[in-house]
């Protein structure tokens, strides 16, 4: 086989993927990035559910839902707080 013939045959070795290749790539990119979004949404849902459970428990224990109840100091009187501050 002559060099020139082989060179010509090699030059003909050109290929293309199908017409829908770019769609396939875009779909794959979307698929590979989607799990992060899924994990993120689970993470946010988890935090929201934890806050709701926490609020429900505080409400059931204290019968009210304010910042003191959340901090666990709603049952303390102001005087008690002043006395406690002396030890700080």
């Amino acid at each position: 086989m002559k060099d020139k013939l082989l060179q010509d045959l090699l030059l003909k070795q050109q290929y293309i993927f199908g017409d829908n290749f770019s769609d396939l790539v875009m779909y794959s990119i979307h698929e590979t990035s989607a799990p992060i979004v899924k994990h993120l949404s689970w993470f946010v849902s988890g935090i929201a559910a934890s806050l709701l459970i926490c609020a429900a428990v505080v409400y059931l224990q204290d019968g009210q839902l304010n910042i003191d109840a959340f901090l666990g100091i709603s049952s303390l009187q102001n005087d008690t707080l002043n006395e406690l501050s002396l030890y700080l």
Partner: protein
Amino acid sequence: MHVNQSKISDFELIQNAIQGQQYSFSEIVRRYQPLIATTAMGMLGDLDQAQEIGQQVFIRFYKSMNNFRNEAKLSTYLTRITINLCLNHLKRNQNFRNRKLDLVLATNSASSDNFDKDFEEKELINQALQYLSENQRIVIVLRMIQGYSTQETAELLGIPKGTVLSRLKRAMDNLKDILTKHY
């Protein structure tokens, strides 16, 4: 408004894609898929595997395009990714690939009358390429099929120009032997 994407430079397309314009990235894929297809087919000899690698090339580029600098040609950058992924793929599937190649050759020679001449020639060269060592095949694909210069091929592979030339000479001689022996 959609501008005619085919007239936009690679760098502008990348910038637009980074800003979230998906059709700009689609245009990059359309523009460079023949380059990737030809390189991956030359290296792997199987269109399904080449297409799988092609997808990975563009996904990898999509994830790293923020780091792309305009100093390098996009074609060179994508070719480099393709070569690396093909070599990894070949390492993982070496035993399977050797068995499969023998089978394809046997099937092909038995039914060669049914093939269109051009297609048949293309297929024979494609299969003959798979008999070369990876180092020789890469040089043939880049230098003889993709038309990169010796200098560009050397830079892409990170080897001296002299090594490219000697590998090319050996690869062409081997390819001629293989074609004469088998066909």
